[in-house]
């Protein structure tokens, strides 16, 4: 029951504030409270090379680059230090199996931290 209800509640809260796309593996805390899934290229590890001179998106010229916003917020918002430290961590590929599920449940069960076996053996900080 909770498993069916929570995605609705989560979306109802996170959609208006962060334009949440229900990827089910929320990383907002580490990306300056800016959802990387709202980047048209869904980039989770930083901006592409197409950011315009005015700081706007390559794909949607009238929108500010999601990662420019994320970086500014990381620098200027009074976020917990540990969240800021996570900004440059290597975020794994999105697990498409979690699309539409509640990231709150996945956080509690640690399902959102499961990565493919190959990825788990390499930490990205050699």
């Amino acid at each position, binding site marked *: 029951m909770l498993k069916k209800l929570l995605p609705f509640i989560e979306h109802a809260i996170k959609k208006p504030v962060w334009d949440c796309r229900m990827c089910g593996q929320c990383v907002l805390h580490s990306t300056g409270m800016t959802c990387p899934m709202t980047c048209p290229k869904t980039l989770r590890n930083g901006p592409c*090379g*197409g*950011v315009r001179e005015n700081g706007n998106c390559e794909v949607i010229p009238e929108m500010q680059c999601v990662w420019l916003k994320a970086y*500014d917020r990381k620098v200027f918002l009074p976020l917990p230090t540990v969240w800021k430290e996570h900004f440059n961590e290597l975020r794994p590929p999105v697990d498409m199996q979690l699309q539409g599920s509640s990231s709150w449940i996945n956080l509690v069960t640690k399902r959102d931290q499961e990565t493919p076996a*190959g990825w788990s053996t390499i930490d990205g900080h050699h």
Partner: protein
Amino acid sequence: MSLMREKLENSNDVVFTAEFPSIDGAGMAKVEKNAARLAPWFVGVNATDNPAAHAHASNTTTAIAMKMHGIEPIMQIVCRDKNRLAIQADMMGAALHGIENISLLTGDDVTAGDEPESRRVFDLDSTQAINIARIMTTGQYLSGRKINPAPDFYISAVENPAAPPFDYRIERALKKYRAGAKYLQLQICYHPDRLEKFCAGVAKIAPDLKLIPTIVLVKSAKPMSFMNEKVPGIDIPQETLNRVSAAADQAEEAYKLTVELAKHAMTLPAVRGLHVTDFRHDDSLDRFMYDLGQKPRN
């Protein structure tokens, strides 16, 4: 061992790279012609992957054709058109043909191309793709399934030193290095001050990461204006555009500007070579290389 690896890791030689022209018909004759033009000067040449979101002969097949004609390919893979299965298949296919230089890019958006109605994939981002290439060099796919023997990739990536957010670009270079990139080819940059800051920043936090800035040979102010207006991520200062457009001999002034930018880039920390994009298609490539003190390779 790939020549790119040998030169960048075991020598202090300046390494020049270039872009292999896209193949749309014209067959191997065109490959041969381009190979002959590029071979004297370049250690590695990029086999592109649907550049600017236009379909062409594929990255892997172009890389194989280049190899057949004596050019060492740097095989690009972009995240726009392929999911993680196809990207790993590209890399394994490259390994099958002895292609070791792999460059992982985000890729221009589909809206940059002639088929903007395409589905954009972006199942991976470039940094994740770099890390997966490194995982494969440890003898396994992303899933953990074994690859025996492990491919010996020499992994690289790209970065734009001149697009916002400027400070973050340096941190992102470090992130790509940590994921497995040994060198970065840089986007075209007409802001020497931005390039200077980027290279100094990278040299400070990732001293082993090698940088290869891009230099473009153009014939007039027109292609410069085009890049400035149409290519997101490239900005050319108005005074630089004016300098070329106001010149009596635009071709010569554009050439001089290119040499100045190249010489400046080569003095910067962490820079180990130059990536030369030739939009002139005349005899100025040879002249340019000689002016930079290079001699043709045998």
